């Protein structure tokens, strides 16, 4: 049993922590998310240069041979700075599909471009009516002589406006909600027939509604086996869950620290409000909620390579526990900040917003509590 990080991991954390502090200060971030682009490609390039984008990939494909723990460290630092750049869709999701199921040619084409930062991905899996069920798909991929033809509508595709490529889930067979018949494709976003409607998300990112109208993709756009992608999707999304949980831990840590600091400065009735026991106990409960979230994030991260049931149970446990902590800490932090907590000017509200949207990413608390029950 060992909870220590390696020297390399400590170095990555320190380096990233400095980068986020220096390049992601509050005002700069605000300007970036309000700019037309909505993100900073130059930061992306810098992350590539530092090797962060290549960290979880093997050395044969130009990566650094890191693993789930390294990803966790990166995401926690990103969470502290509310970094908006699309690490999860590109590196964790697209990278994950390629790593687990990509052909040699697919890896060669895409992985090196992910690692050097030249290709950015979005993961188009959700649909307006599918909620959190990855198999509830109305998007279809029909086989034709040259490959497949995609039709459908993907909802709230995070990072899509920034992406050059999409990972798309679609039904190649079976009925709606069948576990069989689900496939995954990599699609160039500029392909004919793709229409996007781009917008801002409340937590400072960008997303799109993506429409596929008879989009022809070549046969080698298919990742893995046709019709058998659901277990693969579950593996990759569990990895994304662990990553997002780590991000939420970073955000919660900062939200809690800000609240503590504020409570020591802000005076009411002649004393700092942190002197009031009723607020002290709430901040203690926030602290224990944070530690609980960290523990469950460790568990989910460590179990990613375990057996399927163990992995899913750990990921769902984390999504439930971290989700509850995220909501609790977010709401309490705003409450203790009083009126300032609900202004756009104070950073705390933005942490609250990110933590709120985190709850719904890859399944909310109720969904994962149910999944946990089904895995008993």
């Amino acid at each position: 049993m060992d909870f220590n990080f390696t020297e390399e991991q400590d170095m990555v954390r320190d380096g990233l922590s400095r980068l986020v502090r220096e390049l992601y200060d509050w005002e700069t971030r605000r300007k970036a998310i309000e700019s037309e682009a909505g993100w900073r490609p130059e930061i992306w390039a810098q992350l590539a240069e530092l090797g962060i984008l290549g960290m979880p990939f093997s050395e044969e494909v130009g990566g650094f041979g890191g693993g789930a723990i390294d990803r966790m460290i990166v995401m926690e630092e990103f969470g502290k700075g509310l970094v908006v750049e699309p690490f999860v869709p590109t590196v964790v999701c697209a990278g994950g599909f390629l790593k687990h199921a990509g052909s040699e040619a697919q890896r060669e084409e895409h992985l090196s471009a992910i690692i050097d930062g030249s290709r950015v991905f979005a993961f188009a899996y959700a649909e307006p009516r599918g909620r959190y069920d990855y198999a509830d798909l109305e998007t279809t991929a029909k086989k034709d002589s040259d490959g497949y033809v995609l039709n459908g509508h993907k909802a709230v595709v995070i990072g899509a406006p920034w992406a050059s490529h999409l990972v798309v889930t679609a039904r190649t067979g079976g009925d709606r909600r069948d576990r069989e018949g689900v496939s995954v494709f990599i699609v160039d976003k500029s392909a004919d027939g793709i229409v996007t409607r781009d917008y801002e998300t409340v937590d400072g990112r960008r997303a799109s509604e993506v429409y596929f109208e008879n989009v022809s993709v070549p046969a080698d756009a298919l990742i893995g086996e046709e019709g058998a992608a659901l277990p693969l999707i579950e593996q990759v999304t569990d990895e994304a869950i662990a990553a997002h949980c780590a991000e939420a831990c970073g955000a919660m840590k900062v939200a809690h620290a800000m609240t503590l600091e504020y409570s020591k400065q802000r005076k009411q009735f002649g004393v700092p409000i942190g002197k009031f026991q009723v607020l002290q106990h709430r901040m203690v409960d926030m602290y224990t909620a944070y530690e609980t979230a960290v523990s469950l994030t460790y568990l989910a991260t460590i179990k990613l390579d375990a057996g399927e049931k163990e992995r899913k149970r750990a990921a769902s446990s984390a999504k439930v526990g971290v989700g509850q902590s995220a909501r609790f800490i977010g709401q309490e932090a705003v409450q203790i900040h009083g009126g300032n907590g609900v202004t756009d000017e104070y950073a705390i509200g933005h942490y609250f917003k990110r933590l709120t949207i985190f709850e719904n990413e890859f399944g909310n608390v109720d969904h994962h509590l149910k999944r946990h029950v089904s895995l008993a």
Partner: protein
Amino acid sequence: MNLDFTPEEQAFREEVRAFIEENYPKHLGDVGLREDLSREDFLAWHKILGEKGWSVPAWPEQYGGTGWTPTQRYIWSEENARVNAVMPLPFGVSMVGPVIYTFGNEEQKARHLPGIRSGEVWWCQGYSEPGAGSDLASLKTTAVRDGDHYVINGQKTWTTLAQYADWGFFLCRTDTDAAKPQEGISFILVDMKSPGVEVKPIKLLDGGYEVNETWLTDVRVPVENLVGEENKGWTYAKFLLAHERSGIAGVARSKRGVEKLREIAANETLDGAPLIEDMDFARKVSQLEIDLAALEITELRTLAGEQAGKGPGPESSILKIKGTEIQQRLTELTLEAVGSYAAPYYHSVANDDGSNEYPVGPDYSAHAAETYFNMRKTSIYGGSNEIQRNIISKMILGL
């Protein structure tokens, strides 16, 4: 980072499991924790462990400890929880013992530690007072020096299992003029057979007699029973409380409790189907399991810190709060699972002939309510959970 146990730790687990299977008194296996155990029942396993040298695993080796790592101790507690073992009571082993070997003199160590190890001497804790409660420092019991004796007067309460105790460790005020209430308190060992010591059991709402009121009237105690320095007892009391809190999470036992809860809920029915298949109920069980998983990792993180040389610090307050909340929710859910057979009062329906058969309802229902009632104590004792929050807010958050 790696959560797996090493091959050595796995081998240790096998060794421990085999020892427990061979030596744990079989008749106690069925008793569980919630029957009125006799003094002999409480001590049976303790004495066996004493002979084996495993009764005080966490002590330094020079005083009879095992030299086990925190991880090994964790494995040890898990294996004991598997058989629901009646563990050595904490009063000697994890409370006064560490105080004596840390702050006591050589004579005190030689006199008291062997009896704690072997289980021959039963200890009780004289901290709480009727008017003090969580405000421990406001205690009023006095110890006045008279030649080579202290004369102790006062009343203690919640003295757990003092009805069986040979010795007690008491916090007494030796300086009534001290500037702060925490100063002027001393840590004194009292022979419970001394004249003037009177112990009166308090019946609790579960029907059991677990705690007592203890009166001390002109009790003469030799000065050599003072531990450490006079008026410095608060320091030792705080040390003791931090030790008490580590291990208070009760993870292994709660894990066993969740298994038991699932068994009960598989047996009970709702709308013609097993209760455990009811989504409302099943979600509560899952939520409990998730919180328990978080607590387990948090405890392992704390243990890893201890292994790296950090003593039990204020973080143990998290384990106390979360651990006791989970214990309470577990007994609450068990009560819910049992349904209407939670109502029969066990003491009114228990067989007089000593047979094991419960006369009313399924056997798992007999103690559900009393266990639930009994476990309300956990968020109150050992420094209430509100006090734990005060500790975290001061020591960790700096408020």
